């Protein structure tokens, strides 16, 4: 879980180099999620962690914090095992 979070932090830092994000900070409330960034984030999650996100996974709540994104990745990985 920690490794996943570190990878997510590194990805986010590429886009927001001056911002220090907490794991439970809501990305939507910060105004971070938009159409350009959302696709890049989904593309990153699917490619980096070798998972395929289904319709049910594409829920706002799953992408609201680093914690929730990491939990989604972990859950999808466990399903694939």
């Amino acid at each position, binding site marked *: 879980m920690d490794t996943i979070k570190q990878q997510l932090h590194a990805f986010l830092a590429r886009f927001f180099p001056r*911002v220090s994000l907490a794991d439970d900070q809501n990305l939507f409330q910060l105004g971070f999620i938009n159409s350009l960034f*959302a*696709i890049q984030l989904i593309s990153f999650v699917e490619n980096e962690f070798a998972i395929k996100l289904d319709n049910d996974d594409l829920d706002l709540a799953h992408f609201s914090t680093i914690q929730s994104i990491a939990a989604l990745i972990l859950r999808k990985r466990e399903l694939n095992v």
Partner: protein
Amino acid sequence: MSTDLTLQQREAQIKFAAFAQHSLAPFVDEMDRMEFTPAHLLQEIALQGYLGALAPRQFGGQGLDISTLGLLHEEFGRVCSSLRSLLTVQSMLIYALMWRGSEAQKARWLPPLARGEMIGAFGLTEPLIGSDARHIQTHFLLDGNTFILNGQKKWLTYGQIADLFLIFAQQEGQISAFLVEKDTPGLTLIPLRGLLGTRASMLVEVHLQDCRVPRTHLLGGSGFAFETVAGLCLALGRYSVACGCVGLVQACLDASLLYVDQRVQFNVLLLEHQLIQQMITNMATNLTASRLLCHETGRLMDQASSESLLSTWMAKYFSSLAAHQAAQDAVQIHGANGCSSDYAVQRYLRDATVMEIIEGSTQIQQTTIARYYANMQMPSTTNRSFGMDVDGFARGV
């Protein structure tokens, strides 16, 4: 930047160009005048597999990579922006299904879309909502296992002959995407005529009145469709339009070179006049630059690179400007003849004007790209209020 095409891609482009020049070009000026695309051309394009070029082979498509798809759209754009726009929207629907469709949705709709037996249309823009697409007014309600859609959509390319509509609607500001078949009760199509450019693209306005759609027709999850479905479709759309613009610039250059090498003024060919040379030089240079941007974007998209999104914005921004400038210069070079329907350059100029508006206007591209770079530099407090404001990147229509 590495933009070398493979031998296979170069051979494919030669094939695409031959088809466009021989099978499409003889009809396109008449199509522009009539504001209509004849059925036999649609069948011919479908027979070649070009409508399903992007769809995986297992679903009856050609399984082209994005780079090769761009070459196809360039060659169509070189001949006719309307027909290029047909490929654009069909590819957008296929792309959305490929990446965000459930297995059942793929099995149901990808094969007919890939074979060209079904035409797709993309419904995001509305009569009162264009660039500010996050604030669409069309709304939905869930009633048991059925969604009920109400609202209006406008400017749907090839909507007059579409069989499947990808409709975006909102509930309390959360946007979802729905696949709506043309015979769904409550769906009404109103043809739009008298357009400035891409006149053969058979646009419609769509009215949805208590239009009931099964729950299984929801595409890409609930409430997150603006980012995941519309964003995905529009990224491909921008790339397609950009490649089409490369073809448009090439067409302007081809027509201009032919003209300046035949027309004599002041006892010398037009080509000998230095101000004509300046316009030819600008055209040729912008052609090369926009083509390089498109090739780079295609390469990044094929690699599923997270950098490909920004690249689609830049490619579309630069190529549509280049197309508009090239078409203006081509008309100028042709003088009075350029204003006549006897010469295709007047069509190029009208089509190029549309290219600066669709899939994100030039001004939206400018603010989007600037905000992207501003965010990479600004401190966090500014970040929240300026760069990453949701609407800032959301206006990509």
